[in-house]
Structure formats: C-alpha cells, structure tokens
C-alpha cells in the first residue's frame, strides 16, 4: 500500500531523484568539523520556527514590547521555553556559523571551484550578525536600548557618511518607536528572506560541486 502510494507520487514528483541528489551524494571521508554547515542550517530553521512562535504574542511598539515579553515569560504556557530556545539559539548560531567559516578557511575549502560558495557564506555570516544586532533591540529593556544606542553611534563614526548611516539605522536622530519598528521588520522579514535565498544558492553549489576532502600532507 505504502509502496504503491510512494511509486505513484515518485512518478510525478521525482522524490527518489531529489533524495539521491540531495542526501545520497558521494562524499569523501571527512570528520566532525564537516557537520557545522548542517548544524547552521538546523539552527536557522530552529530560530525561524521559534521566532514565528514569538511573533504570536510579541508587539514591536515601545509601550507594549517589554510588557508583551513579560507576558510571554510568565503568562503563556512554555513561553519561557520558546523564548529561551530563541535567545540561546541565537548565540549558538553565531558561534556555529563562525566555526563553519573557520573550518572552511583552515581546510582550504574556499579554493577553486568553490570561491562563489565562500562569497555567499561570508554574506550569510554577516547577515547572521545582522540578525543578532536587530534582534537584540526587540526586548526594549535598558540593555537593549543602550546597546543599540552605542552600536548605532559606532556606525555614525564612519567618515562623511556617518550621520546619514546613523539616522538611517535609527529612523531619526534618536532611538524611538521608528527604530524598534524598522529593526523588527529587518529581523523578521528582510534578513530572514535574504538569508533563506542565499542558503538556497549556497546549498545548490554544495550539491553541484560536492564537498572538499580533508587536506593531506602533500596538499
């Protein structure tokens, strides 16, 4: 029965081909450092799911942001767990993506023909840091407010363009409701959409080119 249904679907969707291409690839003998990419992808999906869950109760407005998070932490069943996973997952994702970059660098995996995979990877690392930067403001507590004040001021020290960048980030002269709204928008729409698209490109090239092996003595 199951076999019949699967054959029927496979004939139309090519499930076996997708499975063979994506998961049943030939790979060289590698070690645990090569799992960091999958770990990054898993963390991205985890952050996506828990983030979507948090938007059910979170309100990106200065009068409600803090209170709505208090409500998530104390008023909703397992709200502490969902927020906790998102909070710790964020730090872990930055670490894992960074180690993934270090692995690629030290194993020379960025070389021909994988230069473009490296470039998309660097963009993904920067966007991951951007997610951390925009997400940090959302709790709208003292730490979030002043951290963002300092960080946007640092961006303001860029020669010539500094003031413009500072105001573009803040959506005005000071941190305000406008800042919170644009950080929220970047955090849940712009960055995840771009990250998702770049992961697609990154994975396409990993599948197309295969992964590099561990460098040997003679390399």
């Amino acid at each position, binding site marked *: 029965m199951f076999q019949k249904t699967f054959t029927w679907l496979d004939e139309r969707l090519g499930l076996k081909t997708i499975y063979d291409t994506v998961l049943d690839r030939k790979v060289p003998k590698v070690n645990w450092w090569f799992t960091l990419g999958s770990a990054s992808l898993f963390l991205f999906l985890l952050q996506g799911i828990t983030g979507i869950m948090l938007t059910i109760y979170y309100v990106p407005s200065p009068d*409600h942001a803090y*209170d709505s998070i*208090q409500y998530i932490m104390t*008023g*909703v*069943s397992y709200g502490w767990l*969902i927020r906790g996973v998102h909070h710790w997952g964020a730090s872990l994702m930055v670490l894992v993506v960074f180690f993934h970059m270090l692995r690629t660098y030290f194993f020379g995996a960025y070389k021909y023909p994988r230069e473009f995979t490296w470039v998309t990877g660097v963009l993904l690392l920067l966007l991951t840091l951007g997610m951390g930067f925009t997400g940090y403001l959302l709790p709208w507590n003292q730490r979030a407010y002043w951290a963002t004040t300092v960080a946007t001021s640092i961006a303001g020290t860029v020669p010539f363009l500094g003031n413009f960048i500072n105001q573009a980030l803040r959506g005005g002269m000071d941190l305000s409701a406008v800042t919170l709204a644009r950080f929220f928008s970047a955090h849940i729409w712009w960055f995840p959409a771009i990250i998702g698209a770049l992961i697609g490109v990154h994975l396409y090239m990993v599948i197309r080119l295969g992964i590099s092996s561990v460098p040997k003595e003679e390399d």
Partner: protein
Amino acid sequence: MPSSPQMSRREFVGIVTAVVGTFMGAVLGIPAINYLIAPALKKESADVWIPAGPVENYLVGVPTLFNFNRTKVNGWEKTVNSYGVYIIHHEDGSILALSNKCTHLSCRVNWKPETSAYVCPCHDALFDIDGQIIKGPQPRPLDEYETKIEENILFIHYLGS
C-alpha cells in the same frame, strides 16, 4: 551491501535517527502546541463581591446610583471599565440592585423622580422603579445584580462582564 543476518550500519543509523527525531519532535512539539493554545485554556474567574457601603446610606424608596470600576487584564494590556448600579432600598428592608445599562443598546439609564422611571437618553426606553419595562424598544427588564448584607455592609455580586 551484502545481506547479513545482522542489521546493516545504514539501517541502524536510520532507525536511531527516526527514534531520536520522534523524541525531539514530541519534546518540542507538545510545549509548542501548549504555547499556541494557552489563552484558550485560561479560565477567567472575575466573579467578585463588591462592597457598596452601609445599608443605611441608601434611602428607602429612592434609587441611588452606585459606581465602581473593574480592571481587566488582557495579556500585556489593561482595560478599566466603569459600572453603574441603582440600589433600591425597599420599605420591607429588601434590596434590589439594577444595572444602569439599558437592555436595548447599552446606553446608561437615569432615574427621573418626577416621572418615577428610569429613562434611557438614547431611544427613550422607560423602566419602572424595579426595572420592569414601561414602554420603549428594550427587549427585557434591566439586569439585576445579586446582593447580600454582611455586618450591615451591602455587597454586590459582580460576575465579570
């Protein structure tokens, strides 16, 4: 893969992945569902007895308006609602507490001694001193609150709406 009586490495990894995956799915899935439906599972018991002062404050035969506020907490937001109750102290000592909310479209009715009726300013609904319909568009008499007297203090039973 040569067929051997033992489980192949590939089969073993597949089964372990399925078992661990199911366990992780349950551990994460059950709290997730709880999180989503939490507001639907909450029972609101806003039911409370509100003190309205000593009984002798209410003159016999004269409907007296008593006002109180209730705060409703909805998640991260609070709403304060005010309520008006006409207290009627009958000659036989019994107490009647009527909501001043018109049963037609919820405007507030006022006691008019000259006509001996509660008059609604919106559509001229008229109620007699005990809240019964005299005339007008209202579908039912004024709503009644349960009352009790403890140590000469009048209490009104607020049910939460």
